[in-house]
């Protein structure tokens, strides 16, 4: 189906189902229950899951396939965001030209940086990409402020030209981003019993993009091009002595992953028309590296899982404060309640970084292949149990 084999097509279907039903899946707890804090089914976070998923999928095309570890991919995301916001400022609030421009601009930027950085391999390559990205960030933060609006981030104002759109709405506000009139920020709320599910246009826009990006990634993984990239990772020497020029292969992978990053950046700006320079900082580049490794580098679904994992902690765990903890444990006797809260306090709220750090260590120590391996192990375990059950039932009559 769609040029995919059965296994890949199933994977695509599963991802599609997860993405389409995310507003339900991520909102498992009734809105007024104590566990509602763990609900992640609100538009902003769902958009982030999907956008960072795209970013990580793209990064994985470079890192997972070729083994080239770029420490500067956030620069492409940042450039994509800036391009999109400029498009909103100058042309119109339609996201289509904005996203197209951001993909093109970040692709060109990736071509430039990739062409230079790919002259080196290994850690030398990593440091070159890091250096370019850090330069971009620092300049964006200071000297390039006329283009980037520095620390505050590039944002829309009431006096932007928007030649194909309107400068300001009739009510005197800044117009909103849209897809041929469909407003990205519009949300429908569905209340079912104690649950409340939010369906956001912007989210579904991102979701469609994710599915396209994911589908394209599968095709790349299964194509001769993907195989060549894996061969580059495996043995460059043999590549050269097999009459293959590795340079254009790696450069193509670099540019493609840069364009994925640009798409993510453009989408991010389309959901929330502000582009902050921190998006380009090395920590942001490091984050996508962590997402990919955490999920499982070189696997199709891993990076998406990794992205979801990190964004979930950043957005959910950081919001659990002392009051919330007390509300969970108020049934306990006071002394114990305080003790439990005191312990947990370290790991949530302002301590969310600690939890994340510990989880990084645990996952990589016990699941060398990342979260995907965790899933595989779980699957194997279940199958084995299943098999045991079967053998048990089969062997019973024989006795």
């Amino acid at each position: 189906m769609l040029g995919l084999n059965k296994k890949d097509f199933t994977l695509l279907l599963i991802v599609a189902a997860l993405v389409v039903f995310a507003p339900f899946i991520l909102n498992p707890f009734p809105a007024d229950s104590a566990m509602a804090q763990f609900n992640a089914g609100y538009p902003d976070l769902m958009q982030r899951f999907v956008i960072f998923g795209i970013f990580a999928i793209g990064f994985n095309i470079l890192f997972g396939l070729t083994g080239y570890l770029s420490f500067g991919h956030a620069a492409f995301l940042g450039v994509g965001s800036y391009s999109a916001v400029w498009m909103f400022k100058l042309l119109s609030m339609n996201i289509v030209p904005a996203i197209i421009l951001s993909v093109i601009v970040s692709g060109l930027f990736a071509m430039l940086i990739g062409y230079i950085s790919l002259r080196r391999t290994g850690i030398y390559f990593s440091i070159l990409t890091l250096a370019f990205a850090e330069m971009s960030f620092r300049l964006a933060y200071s000297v390039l402020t006329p283009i980037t609006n520095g620390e505050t981030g590039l944002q829309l104002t009431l006096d932007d030209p928007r030649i194909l759109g309107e400068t300001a709405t009739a009510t005197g506000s800044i117009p909103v981003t849209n897809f041929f009139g469909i407003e990205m920020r519009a949300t429908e709320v569905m209340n079912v019993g104690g649950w409340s599910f939010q369906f956001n246009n912007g989210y579904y826009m991102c979701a469609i993009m994710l599915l396209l990006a994911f589908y394209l990634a599968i095709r790349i993984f299964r194509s001769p091009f993907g195989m060549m990239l894996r061969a580059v990772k495996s043995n460059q020497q043999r590549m050269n002595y097999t009459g293959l020029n590795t340079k254009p292969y790696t450069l193509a992978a670099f540019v493609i992953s840069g364009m994925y990053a640009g798409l993510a950046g453009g989408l991010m700006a389309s959901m929330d028309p502000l582009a902050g320079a921190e998006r380009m900082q090395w920590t942001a580049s490091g984050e996508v590296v962590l997402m990919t490794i955490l999920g499982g580098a070189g696997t199709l679904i891993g990076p998406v899982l990794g992205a979801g994992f990190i964004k979930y902690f950043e957005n959910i765990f950081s919001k659990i404060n002392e009051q919330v903890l007390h509300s969970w444990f108020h049934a306990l006797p006071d002394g114990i309640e305080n003790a439990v809260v005191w312990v947990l306090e370290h790991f949530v709220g302002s301590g969310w970084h600690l939890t994340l750090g510990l989880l990084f260590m645990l996952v990589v120590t016990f699941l060398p292949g990342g979260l995907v391996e965790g899933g595989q192990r779980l699957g194997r375990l279940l199958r084995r149990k299943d098999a045991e059950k079967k053998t048990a039932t089969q062997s019973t009559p024989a006795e």
Partner: protein
Amino acid sequence: MGILDVKNVGKRFGGLQALGDVNLSVKENTVHAIIGPNGAGKSTLLNCLVGKLIPDTGSVMFDGQSVLGRTPYEINQMGISRVFQTPEIFGDLTVMENMMIPCFAMRDGAFKLNGIRSVESDTEIRERAEAMMEDMNLAEKRHMHSASMSRGDKRRLEIAMCLAQEPRLLLLDEPTAGMARADTNNTIDLLKEIKQKRDITIVIIEHDMHVVFSLAERITVLAQGTPLVEDVPENIKGHPKVREAYLGEAAAA
């Protein structure tokens, strides 16, 4: 004029003259061995042929065209394939995939951005790879991770990958180094079979005289960066200069 003509090639590394003034002509469809004691410059010469090193002086012509100044992949595309001392294969890939890569390289050239069509659907390449694996007795291992194969199988795979490109010149750098006797004999048989079936020129660098004398039609002896003798195997065996070169080495050791 042979298919490969090396004229006056010299190469220095700092103060060390690795190759002095090497002249060598390899005739088409022959097996030509280059032997010599350690440090004689055999590997340096080989590296000059495939573009890994650029000689300081002289010329290297393959089929009337100069290979100098070309990158390894360009030289490969001219029709020269190389087998390494330790098998260089794509360890992370399966045997089948290993086989398909040279097939792609042969059909699509040094670079083709073919990112949409799946490998599976490319029957032409699959068939070619299958045929080659069949030919080289690798078909049963097609789904194996190539890194987990035995050394002999890796060597076989590497040779198969080279042959899949239908090269006119195959360079072998000590193909039996570190192999057990039985594997060595298998490799000899394999090379003989290849020679029998195909129109191919083979240049082999080898330490193991058993291998050399089983295969070579002509032998060049290299010592201290210069060719000592070049002749048919029968004449090499008792040649005094050769003895001196090797015994000298033995005495030094």
